[in-house]
């Protein structure tokens, strides 16, 4: 790209980005100039994470599992493969495991060490998922944390906390709400929230959805 030299300085100069933004630019320039990353691949990744992947992917997986018992069985047996059937696959080859809520079991996911998250089906984690508070407290006092999310579980419900790693990411299959028997997959998917797939929420009821 050829640019005109800047002879004139009649305008105010460009707004200086923040210190971290300039450090990020320095890293990118260095990596690109050394040929370590392809700038187009970086742009493509930003686009994918910003626009293409998100909880709508996971909602599709859950809705399919609710309607199709064979798919549900495949999803529980091999989450990675069943999720790939719908066209969603790992960015870094991470292994996906689906865990299912039932009348007597509730599952909830955390990454105690950093922020491992099932990107292909949920996109990027919310800030609270990455917070030291959630990461520490969910293991120590899961019921109290869930209570703060409005998830009140009777004492006789077994609560399972899954600690994600760089290799294994968990997707919660929430319970299918009552009164949804006649719904299409797309209608069902609209009831599946991000939090319900982390375990910090429930699927919406049809009236609320």
């Amino acid at each position, binding site marked *: 790209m050829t640019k005109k030299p*800047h002879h004139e300085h009649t305008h105010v100069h460009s707004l200086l980005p923040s210190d*971290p*933004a300039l*450090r990020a630019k320095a*890293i990118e320039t260095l990596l*690109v100039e050394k040929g370590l990353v392809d700038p187009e691949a970086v742009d493509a990744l930003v686009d994918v994470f910003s626009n293409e992947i998100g909880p709508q992917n996971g909602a599709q997986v859950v809705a399919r599992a609710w309607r199709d018992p064979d798919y549900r069985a495949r999803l529980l047996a091999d989450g990675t493969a069943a999720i790939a059937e719908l066209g969603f696959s790992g960015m*870094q080859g991470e292994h996906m495991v689906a865990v299912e809520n039932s009348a007597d079991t509730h599952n909830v996911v955390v990454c105690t060490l950093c922020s491992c998250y099932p990107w292909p089906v949920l996109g990027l984690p919310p800030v609270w998922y990455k917070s030291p508070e959630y990461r520490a407290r969910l293991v120590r006092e899961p019921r109290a944390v869930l209570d703060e999310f409005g998830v009140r579980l009777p004492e006789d419900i077994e609560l399972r906390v899954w600690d994600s790693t760089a290799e294994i990411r968990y997707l919660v299959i929430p319970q299918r709400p009552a009164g949804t028997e006649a719904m299409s997959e797309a209608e069902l998917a609209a009831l599946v929230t991000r939090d319900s797939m982390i375990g910090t929420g429930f699927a919406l009821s049809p009236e609320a959805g």
Partner: protein
Amino acid sequence: MLPKAEPDRPFAEPWHAQVFALTHALAAAGHFTWPEWAAHFSRALEQAEDAGGPTDGSDYYDVWLAALEAFLIETRFADPAQLKDLQEAWTTAYLTTPHGEPVELPGRGEGSEFAMRDTGAAG
């Protein structure tokens, strides 16, 4: 107290997207594995927390950025002087480019087109 209202945007700042994507691109290109990065980043998060950092996750990408710099230096993909020089070059470029014109680094050679481009993602 935990769940807070959050913006819909996946990345609050363009540089968050930039460091996130750069790290993914490095791993995808095979320069390190994701578990290697995750182990390094986990230690950085722990240190930030031990040092009295916020517990609400608000410093997450600051820690990521510092961890990426340290990781690149540790793995000899970068050295601190290079990074500092480039940061200064970008600073100068911003301060000497008239408002509204593309900000570029002067005198970059082959393959510098991207580095010279001030895109939204790199902003």
